[in-house]
C-alpha cells in the first residue's frame, strides 16, 4: 500500500517533468542575444527549447554551486576556466568526450585550461591576457617601450597632477602577475606530465622579491599615485588622462567607443631584465555542462555542434571581443571583420600566447587573498617586499 503510494507520487513527478523539455543556459549579458538566436536553430533541429538566462558573470559560479548540488540549476553555464577545479572536485561538471570534438581546431592553451585531472570539463570560447594600452596622444607607435626602464622613463614624462604616465591595478595579483613571471616567479610549479605541484610555491623567490621592489618603485618614484584602483585607471584612460595602462581585452570596446586613439603592446614584448620578458596570466572563458542535469546529452550537442563551431565562436567574438579560442576563426575575422581592429587582436593574441594559464586547481583559491594583501602592504610601504611575500607564501601554505 505504502509502496504503491510512493510509486504513484514518483510517477506524478515523472509525468510533470515530461513537460519541461528545456535546455537552460546561464550566460552573462553580452552573449544572451546571439545564444538565443543559436538556440532557436537548435529548437528547430531537435525540438528541445533553449532558455538562455542572464546571470551576472560574477554570480554564475556561486549560484551554480548552490543550484547544482540540489540537482537543479542550468544545464550549461558560461564561465572561467579557473572555476573548473572547484566545480569538478565537487562533481558538478560533466566531462566532454575528447573524441567528439575537433581538438586540433582549438587553441591548445584553451584546451589545457579546461583540462583538470586528465579530463576536459569545458569548451573554451575566448582567451584573454592583459596587455599594455598606450594613448597615441602621449606615446607614438615608435616610442613604445620595450623594457621596464624605458616604460618608467616614458611614464615619468607624462605624470602630472592631473595625468598619470603609467597605471596598473598594482594591488590586484591578476593584473601584475606579468611582472612576477618576468623575474622568474611562479605560483605553483608546473610539469606538463604531473600537473601542478602545490608544495612548490615560487612567490617569494628572488625574482618575486625583485618584482615587489619594482612595483613599489612605481609609487616611490611618483609615477603612480597611491590609491590607484581599477575604476580610476579605467576612467582616466577613457578620459585621455592616462598615457599607458595595463588592462585586458574586455576593456577594448569601451575605449573604442570613447574615441581614445590607442594601441596595444603585448606584455611579452616588454623586458624586465635583458632577455627576460613579462608573462601575464592567461584566462579562458568557456562553456561547461552541469553533471546533475537531466539533459546532458542535449547540452553536449548544443555546445559541440552549435556553440563551439567556428561560426559560433565568431559570434561570441562579435558579442564580447576577446580572443577567439578556435584557430579557424581568425580566417572568418579576416573575411568578415570584427568589432576590434586586427592589430589589437594580434597584440593580445601574442600576449596570451606567451603567457601562463592561470592554474585551474582548487588550491588557486587560497592564493588570491594572501597575494593581494601582500601587494597592498608592499605598495603602501607597510612591509618590505621580502616580509610581505614570505608572509603571503606561508599563508598560502597554511591554507592548503
Amino acid at each position, binding site marked *: 500500500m505504502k509502496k504503491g*503510494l*510512493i510509486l504513484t*507520487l*514518483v*510517477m*506524478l*513527478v*515523472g509525468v*510533470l*517533468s*515530461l513537460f519541461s*523539455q528545456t535546455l537552460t543556459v546561464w550566460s552573462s549579458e553580452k552573449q544572451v542575444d546571439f545564444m538565443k538566436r543559436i538556440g532557436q536553430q537548435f529548437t528547430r*533541429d*531537435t*525540438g*528541445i527549447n533553449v532558455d538562455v538566462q542572464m546571470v551576472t558573470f560574477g554570480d554564475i559560479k556561486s549560484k551554480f*554551486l548552490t543550484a547544482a*548540488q540540489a540537482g537543479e540549476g542550468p544545464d550549461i553555464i558560461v564561465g572561467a576556466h579557473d572555476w573548473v577545479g*572547484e566545480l569538478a*572536485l*565537487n*562533481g*558538478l561538471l*560533466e566531462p566532454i*568526450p575528447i*573524441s*567528439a570534438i575537433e581538438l586540433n581546431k582549438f587553441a591548445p592553451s584553451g584546451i589545457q585550461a579546461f583540462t583538470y*585531472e586528465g579530463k576536459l570539463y569545458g569548451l573554451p570560447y575566448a582567451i584573454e591576457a592583459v596587455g599594455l594600452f598606450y594613448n597615441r596622444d602621449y606615446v607614438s607607435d615608435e616610442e613604445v617601450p620595450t623594457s621596464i626602464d624605458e616604460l618608467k622613463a616614458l611614464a615619468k614624462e607624462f605624470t602630472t597632477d592631473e595625468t598619470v604616465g603609467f597605471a596598473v591595478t598594482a594591488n590586484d595579483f591578476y593584473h601584475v602577475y606579468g611582472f612576477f613571471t618576468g623575474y622568474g616567479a611562479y605560483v605553483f610549479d608546473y610539469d606538463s606530465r604531473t600537473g601542478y605541484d602545490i608544495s612548490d610555491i615560487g612567490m617569494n623567490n628572488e625574482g618575486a622579491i625583485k618584482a615587489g621592489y619594482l612595483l613599489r618603485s612605481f609609487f616611490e618614484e611618483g609615477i603612480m*599615485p*597611491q*590609491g590607484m584602483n581599477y*575604476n*580610476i585607471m579605467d576612467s582616466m584612460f577613457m578620459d585621455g588622462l592616462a598615457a599607458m595602462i595595463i588592462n585586458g581585452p574586455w576593456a577594448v570596446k569601451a575605449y573604442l567607443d570613447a574615441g581614445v586613439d590607442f594601441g596595444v603592446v603585448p606584455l611579452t614584448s616588454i623586458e624586465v631584465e635583458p632577455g627576460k620578458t613579462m608573462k601575464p596570466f592567461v584566462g579562458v572563458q568557456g562553456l561547461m555542462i552541469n*553533471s546533475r542535469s*537531466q539533459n*546532458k*546529452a*542535449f547540452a*553536449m*550537442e548544443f555546445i559541440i*555542434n552549435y556553440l563551439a563551431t567556428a561560426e559560433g565562436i565568431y559570434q561570441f567574438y562579435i558579442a564580447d571581443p576577446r580572443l577567439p579560442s578556435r584557430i579557424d576563426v581568425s580566417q572568418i575575422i579576416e573575411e568578415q571583420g570584427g568589432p576590434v581592429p586586427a592589430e589589437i587582436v594580434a597584440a593580445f593574441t601574442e600576449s596570451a600566447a606567451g603567457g601562463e594559464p592561470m592554474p585551474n586547481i*582548487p*588550491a588557486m*583559491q*587560497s592564493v*588570491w*587573498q594572501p597575494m593581494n*594583501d*601582500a601587494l*597592498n*602592504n608592499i605598495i*603602501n610601504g*607597510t*612591509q618590505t617586499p621580502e*616580509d610581505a611575500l614570505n*608572509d603571503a607564501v606561508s*599563508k598560502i*601554505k*597554511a*591554507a592548503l
Partner: protein
Amino acid sequence: MNKFTTFLIWIFIGVMNALLVWAILLLFILANYGLGIVISIFLVLTDWAIFSKKAYPYRYTLPALFFLFILTIYPIYYTIDTSFTNYGTGHLFTRTNAIDTLLTDPTYYFEPENPKTYDFKVFVRYDEQYKPTEDFLLLLYDEKNMYLSEKPETLEYDSRGNLIYAESELFPIERDQITVNNATYKIIRPTESLGTNGNDSIIAIEKDGEIRYTYFYSPVDPLTSTNSAFYNSVLRQNYLKSLNLVLQDQNFRLSSSTIFRKFSEAYRVYDTSVKVIVDGEREIYKTVVVNTLTNKELVERDSAFWDYNENGELYRLIGYKDYIGGENFAKIITDPRISGPFFKIFGWTFAYAGLSVLLTFVVGLAFALLLNDVNLKGKVVYRTLLIIPWAIPAFISVLVWRNGFFNETYGIINRFILGNLGINPVKWLNDPFWAKVAILITNTWLGFPYMMTINLGALQSIPGELYEAAVIDGATRWKQFRQITLPLLMVAVAPLLVMSFAFNFNNFTLIYLLTGGGPAMAGTNTPAGSTDILISYVYKLAFEGSQGQDFGFASAISMIIFAIIAVFSYFNFRFSGSFEEVSR
C-alpha cells in the same frame, strides 16, 4: 454559521491536510527528514488544535506557529546539524548520492579501445489521429547484422522522478523475421526492393501481422529530421538516454563519444557488493563499491571514495557529506590559522560594535535634543536632511565613502580638505589605525539617523512638568539632562541599543564593502585583516580560503557567534532592566 460556510471550512481543512501529507511524503522520499519532521509536528498540532476542545485557545496562534517552525526553528536545527558535518567543497552529496553517481552516471562507463558501434533506426506506432505514440521499436545495425529491441520494460527512476536506468534485450534478426516472447516481428520493405537483405529501405516492422511500427527516425537520415522533435523530447529523454541494451554479455548505450548518435559497447566501471564485517558477536553488512575492471574494492577515506590508478596510487573519485563530530569546533582552538589572530579580531569586534553604538547614539541624541528644542525654526527641513543617510542604501553610500572620500590620492578628504589645510595625506584604508577610524566614521554617518529618530520619539514621552519642577528647584541644564532626560530616555532606548550592538556585531556588509577587512595583519599566516570582525573573518576562512566553500565550518562559527550574542544580550537585558526601576 450556516451549513455552507461549515462545508467550506471542512473542505479547507481537508485540502490543507491533504497538501501537508503530500508535502511530508515528498520530503521523506527526497530524504529531507529534518523539514519532514518539522511539518509533521505542525500537522499533528494543527489537527489537535482544530479537533480537540481543550486546544481551542491555541487555534489562533497556529499561523504564527507555522512560521515559527519554518523560519526560525528549522534553520536553527539545520545550522546545528550542518556544524557537525564536513559539508562543503568536495563533500556536497550524501553517501547514497555518491554511490548512485558512481553506478549510474555515464562518466563512469568504460568503453573498450575499439568498441563495436551500431547505427540505429526508430520505429513508432501511430494512433488513430496519426500521431506518434510512445510505443516504439529500436533497430540496431552494423554492416552485417540487424538486431531488434522492444520498448524497455524495466525502468528505474531516482527519487526526483528522473530516469536513471532502463534495460532491454537485443535479438538478432534473420531473414527479415524474428520471434520475441511469442510475438513475431516482420520487416516490411517496399515491393520494388523486396528480397534485399540490408538495413536500407525498411519502411515498417509488423508485429504478428497486425500492429504496424512505421519507420520514424534515424540520426543519420536527414529525411527523418522533421521527426526529431518528438524523438528527442519524448523517446530519447524518456527511454533511450539511460537505456542499456543487452546482447549476451555485451552492453550497448548511446555513445557519448559520438555525441549520442550511435550505440556503442560500454560497461559500468563500478558495481556494489555487500561485505560482512564481523564486529565481536555481531555481523555488520556494509555496501562497498567495487571497480569491475581491476576487481578492487574502492577505499573510503576522509569521507570520499578513492580508486587505484594504473600505478597503484589512490586517486579521489567523489566525496560525500558525513558527520565528523566536533571537529569543526576543535579546529577553532587547535588550528593556529584560526586561533592565532582570533583574540585580536574578537577584541576589535567588541570595540567596533560598542563604539559604533556609542558614537551613533551620542550623535543621534545631540541632533535629537537640538531638533526637540522649541525655539528651533525649520525643524522639518533639518529633520529631512538628517534622515538622508538612513534613506540611501548602505551598499551605495559605503562605496561612495570608500572611493569618493577615503581614497588616498583622489578622495575628497585627502585631496581637498586635508590638502588645503596643508596636512599630509592620511592612509585611510591602508593604515590599521586609520582604517578603523574610517570604519567608525562611516558607520556613525550611516547609523545616527536611526538613533536620532528613536531618541526624538523617546524625548516626546518625557513629561514637561519634570523640567518645570527642576527649573523651580534651580537645576542647571546639564543637571536636568543628566538626572531627568538621560535616565528616562534610557528606559525606552536601552533595549534598542542592545539590538544595535547585536546588529553591528554582525555588520558584515559595512566591513566587506569598506575595507574588505584590510589592511592585512602583518606577520600572521592567516588571511586576517586589521579591521576584520568575526563574521567577515569567518567568511574569508569558510568561503575564500583553502579550496572553496566550507559550510560545516561556517555553521560552527555562526553558532559560536550566536552564543556570544545570546550571552551578551542576556546580560544587557538584565542591565537595561535595571532602568525600569526608574520608571516605576
